């Protein structure tokens, strides 16, 4: 292993600009004559818009325009869409309601944009926005997903507010297995709604060039090409070739920046109306109200076992809250990213899952780090843990008895697991977590009047999404391959243009490690270009832990082509047969001789083209590839959480966290560990801290960092993070993906630990001090009195 090659903990290329304040985020881009967009948002969860009076606002100082949904409709700007078709059990298509970028007739959640002010400055825009008079007729709202079907109907298209009633698996076989079971564990689970809260708020800057009739959009996007495609083909703002989308440095995404949002559409539309660049930067309140949220499931889950603790079947019935409108990929999250993972790491013969997706008068819900897989893992890992407790079995024994041990393994819910060693990660995690010493530590805690608990989560996820044909057959509106272009310059330095997008993942470093190792050139001689549709060919972007498995595989494929072409050039230079040229450590050698040419010399010769005729060989050294994976990848592992709970306050302290993950090949262990840390923190946030609270009228009560408990540094211990390795057979590098594992594994580990400590399964998420304290009081009423 070289100091900068695959497997080395190379320090990141991108860091110098970030630690010196030289990053270029969307809000840092300034265009001449830039104006600001300030949105007028509905204060009501559900209201008919009777009229909008913009007369006074238009006369305010510095105001260029005040625009409403009526004008948007008059200009025939299309609706936002959801790009994944799900069919109900009865075969009917999902009920996608119209979603205009500015509401014209009805507002359906607090914070929905109903008008926009374009002004010289943000302050002047805000002053004017306060003068826009919207006459609302307030209507009854429905907020609780469990009550959505009996609530007032939000959209004409969706009776009983039902988007689809979907199922996966064999209902009859599962029912028969339950009938024959000797033990059934049942859990009612609420998977709490989360607000993604990347620290960089969403932003958009749109500029229209009337000379060329081109629009440019700088935006906080994880997938600029998909944004351009949707904005062009569905919303109809501009033809694809006349719209450039740039996602510069992006300050965290976690899924929330995958989607195409109303604000960027409005900025583009308005820029062409006022002939000035239009910028919008969300304040945090707007992020809370108008970013797509995550999770929000209500589930009844059951596990059937025989007397030996062998799992016979699993059954789940879930109501998924998709909010007021269907966000870009919302339909796929509680279906194909959720129910397909209900087999966990276990050999479960029969699984059946029903999911009803419903509209409510809340912000739209879509993918948030893990996206469906944390919800599935929580169901499976809580069921397994509780079943073990009910049956008097050790929770690790029950897991081991049911682990999938041979591969490939076909689950009853679509997935074919291709490689893994689940026992290895469990064993290693138990050693690192010193499970043997737990009872002693528990006694020590008891001496101080504290409760101590241990919780496991042996999770699996499906990443590297995914074979385009496979997702197409499941309803995806897009393919999920990735593209790469490798440009070797005449001096032998290299630019890689990738369709992946980095917003914290460190691609500029890891992708360069791959190229440096493969071409035998210095790490410093490689630069990575991404996030600009004018520079990079169409690509799919970054989500679902796919950039290593899919994005880097595309680069490998392009590098294969570079090597093949370079060998032809070298053959001409060295006057040898192409088949005799070997390439190793950056040098082309004629086999069995000392005749060689360095990579840089071959690159130069490819461009000066003096050694071959244009008829024999095209000049230049640049190759393109599109890589479509053969399967999902299946990262898996074991997280162990140890908690100590203060009986007096109900406060849970995480005193130990052990993560042992199998991510396949690791390119940069430093970056991989960082991804695990961040994922665990978000998962712990879900389990302990983060509650999204809408009141009955649909007001978002937890709408700021003062009300929504974001994880702080003092909420965590240092994490112990290790890996095991079985290579993924479905991509050339053997990578599985690491971006979401922590967020997927963590919630179940935390709740399993707390329930272990308190001796009750009735612990909600988030398990706030108040919730745990109240539970302890209920359990010991006499003591409390």
């Amino acid at each position: 292993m070289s100091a900068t090659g695959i497997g080395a903990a190379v320090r990141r290329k991108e860091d110098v600009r970030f630690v010196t304040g030289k990053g270029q985020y969307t809000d840092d881009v300034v265009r001449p004559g830039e104006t600001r967009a300030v949105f007028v948002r509905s204060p009501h969860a559900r209201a008919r818009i009777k009229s909008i009076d913009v007369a006074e606002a238009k006369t305010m100082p510095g105001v260029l325009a005040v625009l409403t949904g009526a004008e948007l409709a008059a200009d025939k700007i299309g609706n936002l869409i959801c790009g994944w078709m799900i069919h109900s059990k009865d075969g009917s298509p999902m009920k996608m309601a119209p979603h205009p970028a500015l509401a014209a007739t009805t507002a359906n959640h607090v914070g929905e944009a109903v008008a926009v002010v374009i002004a010289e400055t943000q302050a002047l825009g805000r002053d004017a926005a306060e003068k826009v008079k919207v006459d609302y007729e307030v209507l009854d709202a429905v907020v609780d997903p469990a009550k959505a079907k009996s609530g007032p109907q939000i959209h004409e298209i969706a009776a009983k507010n039902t988007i689809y009633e979907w199922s996966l698996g064999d209902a009859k076989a599962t029912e028969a297995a339950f009938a024959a079971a000797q033990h059934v564990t049942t859990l009612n689970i609420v998977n709490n709604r989360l607000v993604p809260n990347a620290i960089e708020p969403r932003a958009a800057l749109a500029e229209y060039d009337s000379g060329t009739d081109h629009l440019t959009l700088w935006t906080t996007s994880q997938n600029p090409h998909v944004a351009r495609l949707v904005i062009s083909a569905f919303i109809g703002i501009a033809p694809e070739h006349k719209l450039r989308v740039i996602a510069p440095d992006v300050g965290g995404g976690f899924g929330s920046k995958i989607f195409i949002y109303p604000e960027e559409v409005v900025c583009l539309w308005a820029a062409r109306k006022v002939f000035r660049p239009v910028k919008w930067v969300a304040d945090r309140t707007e992020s809370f109200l108008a970013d797509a949220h995550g999770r929000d499931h209500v589930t009844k889950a059951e596990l059937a076992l025989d007397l030996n603790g062998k799992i016979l079947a699993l059954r789940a019935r879930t109501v998924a809250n998709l909010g007021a409108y269907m966000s870009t990929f919302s339909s796929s999250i509680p279906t194909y990213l959720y129910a397909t993972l209900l087999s966990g790491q276990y050999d479960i013969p029969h699984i059946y899952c029903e999911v009803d997706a419903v509209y409510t008068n809340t912000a739209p819900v879509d993918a948030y780090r893990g996206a469906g897989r944390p919800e599935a893992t929580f169901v499976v890992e809580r069921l397994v843990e509780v079943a073990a407790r009910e049956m008097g079995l050790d929770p690790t024994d029950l897991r081991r008895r049911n682990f999938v041990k041979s591969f490939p393994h076909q689950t009853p819910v679509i997935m074919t697991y291709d490689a893994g060693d689940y026992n290895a990660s469990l064993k290693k995690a138990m050693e690192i977590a010193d499970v043997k010493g737990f009872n002693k530590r528990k006694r020590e805690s008891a001496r101080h009047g504290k409760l101590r608990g241990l919780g496991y989560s042996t999770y699996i996820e499906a990443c590297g999404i995914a074979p385009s044909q496979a997702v197409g057959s499941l309803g995806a509106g897009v393919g999920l391959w990735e593209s790469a272009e490798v440009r070797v310059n005449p001096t032998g330095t290299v630019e890689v243009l990738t369709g992946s997008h980095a917003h914290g993942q460190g691609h500029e470093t890891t992708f360069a490690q791959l190229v440096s190792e493969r071409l035998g050139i210095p790490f410093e001689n490689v630069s990575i270009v991404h996030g600009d549709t004018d520079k990079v060919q169409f690509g799919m972007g970054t989500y679902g832990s796919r950039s290593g498995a899919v994005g880097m595989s595309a680069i490998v494929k392009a590098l294969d082509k570079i090597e093949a072409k370079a060998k032809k050039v070298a053959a001409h230079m060295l006057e040898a047969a192409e088949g005799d040229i070997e390439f190793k450590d950056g040098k082309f050698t004629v086999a069995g001789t000392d005749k060689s040419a360095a990579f840089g010399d071959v690159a130069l010769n490819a461009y000066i083209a003096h050694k071959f005729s244009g008829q024999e060989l095209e000049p230049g050294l640049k190759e393109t590839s599109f890589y479509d994976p053969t399967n999902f990848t299946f990262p898996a592992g074991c997280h162990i959480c140890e908690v100590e709970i203060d009986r007096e306050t109900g406060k849970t302290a995480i005193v130990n966290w052990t993560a042992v993950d199998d991510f396949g090949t690791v390119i940069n262990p430093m970056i991989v560990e960082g991804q695990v840390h961040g994922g665990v923190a978000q998962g712990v946030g879900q389990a302990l801290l983060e509650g999204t609270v809408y009141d009955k009228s649909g007001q978002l009560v937890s709408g700021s960092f003062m009300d929504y408990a974001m994880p702080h540094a003092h909420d965590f211990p240092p994490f112990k993070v290790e890996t095991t390795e079985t290579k993924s057979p479905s991509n050339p590098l053997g990578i599985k993906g690491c971006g979401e594992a922590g967020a997927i594994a963590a919630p179940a580990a935390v709740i399993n630990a707390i329930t272990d400590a308190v001796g009750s399964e009735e612990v909600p998420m988030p398990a706030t001090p108040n919730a745990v304290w109240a539970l302890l009081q209920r359990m010991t009423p006499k003591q409390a009195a």
Partner: protein
Amino acid sequence: MPAVSMTVNGKPVSGDVEARTLLVQFLRENLRLTGTHVGCDTSQCGACVVHIDGIAAKSCTTLALQCEGAHVTTIEGLAEAGGKLHPMQEAFREHHGLQCGFCTPGMIMAALDIVRRNGNDLDEHTIREQLDGNLCRCTGYHNIVKAIAAGAKAMGSQRQVAAE
């Protein structure tokens, strides 16, 4: 509009601002020092931390006019003129104390204030408690804590070398 004058990163600057202009707006929009970020509206996230007369402050909650005559240091003012990173910046890079980089300028400015208040030998508990005013959504804080401890140490030994 009232005029305001202050020293930012060692250079005297002045400008006409509305009374309601925040320091962060003055830095970002008037001076184009965009390393100082805004991540919330309620003074919780700390992405906007700068130093005013040597003490950490949230520039999103400070009016530009309050800084009349003050010495303000932003993230852009830390590295040496030749580009050599400040030891705290170097420690964040070395220990992978950042991912998306958005909270990083505020983290580093807050870290320097932790060192000012607590010295160069910082234990983990102190760092975690003292980071209460800064949010990071990417790193889980693990490597930020490591970076601050290492950066504080490096600052101490640098001072020692300078003294000798």
